[in-house]
């Protein structure tokens, strides 16, 4: 038996109003000035799409109730209520609850249509080595280097666009994080947006997203603030 964790809420939050993974009933544990929505499980649930969706829906149901949940990552299980209370006694969720209070997350993903999936890599010295003519080695290395530099340039271009977009959206945004992505080469921006600014943000982001050809800008949200709760 174990206790599967969905989200941390202010102490006064109501009981969960939806079912959890695999249809299991949920309940609230209150301790150390916070409320945690949990489900009782026999074992750590295996990851699949329907459970991923359900995990998110439980957290979203808190948002729909007007709460600001601190999302917990999929698959976090503690042994029992006692262990959860011990965790809450040792970890102060006050600052993170305050950080995301009244806000939602949006994502801005910058994709480069020229960024192709890498061909599958063969391990060094494995299949193929014997069959390669020695003369092709240098050409192969040059090709690898060229591909590496092209990918670097694409990532730099995506990061420039990310920073530019971030600046232009700043007035609608409480907090932002920019990350480069490797596969495919690109960048992603996470924005923490006050709920009453969400519509203005969405309209502005969509308008701006058209302005970076050939890059494709994909705006998603609102999300629970998954990207702003690391401690």
């Amino acid at each position, binding site marked *: 038996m174990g206790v599967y964790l969905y989200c941390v809420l202010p102490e006064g939050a109501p009981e969960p109003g939806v079912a959890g993974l695999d249809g299991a009933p949920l309940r609230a544990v209150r301790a150390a000035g916070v409320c945690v929505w949990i489900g009782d499980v026999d074992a750590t649930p295996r990851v699949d799409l329907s459970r991923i969706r359900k995990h998110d829906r439980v957290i979203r149901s808190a948002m729909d109730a007007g709460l600001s949940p601190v999302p917990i*990552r999929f698959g*976090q299980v*503690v042994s029992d209520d006692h262990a959860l209370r011990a965790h809450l006694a040792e970890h102060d969720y006050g600052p993170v609850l305050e950080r995301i209070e009244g806000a939602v997350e949006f*994502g801005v993903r910058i994709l480069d249509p020229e*960024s192709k999936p890498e061909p599958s890599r063969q391990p060094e010295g494995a299949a193929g080595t014997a069959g390669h003519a020695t003369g092709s080695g240098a050409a192969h290395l040059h090709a690898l280097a060229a591909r590496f530099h092209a990918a670097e340039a694409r990532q730099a271009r995506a990061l420039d666009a990310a920073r530019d977009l971030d600046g232009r959206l700043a007035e609608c945004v409480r907090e932002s994080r920019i990350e480069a992505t490797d*596969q495919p080469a690109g960048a992603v921006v996470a924005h923490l947006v006050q709920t009453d600014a969400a519509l203005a943000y969405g309209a502005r982001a969509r308008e701006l997203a058209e302005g970076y050809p050939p890059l494709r800008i*994909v705006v998603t949200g609102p999300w629970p603030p998954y990207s702003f709760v690391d401690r």
Partner: protein
Amino acid sequence: MAEPNEAMEPLDEWHGLPDHERLALAELVNRVLDKGVVVTGEVTISIGGVDLLFLGLQLVLSSVETLERAEGLNLRGITPYGRSKR
């Protein structure tokens, strides 16, 4: 720590989906499996496995897609003005 090949399981129903749904799901999986508070120190999936979900999607996307087109992910409950303006 879970085996890295757990990353393959979410992909089972992945390939049959239209592209905008795959994008929405990739964003969802990226957050649910890779962000959020880690309480126990154990994580289910590697960062690399999550990012790979985005490979190949960008070639067929329209310039802007939003999650509002995917099930259940809209501005409902976020603001009193939400859907009525659309």
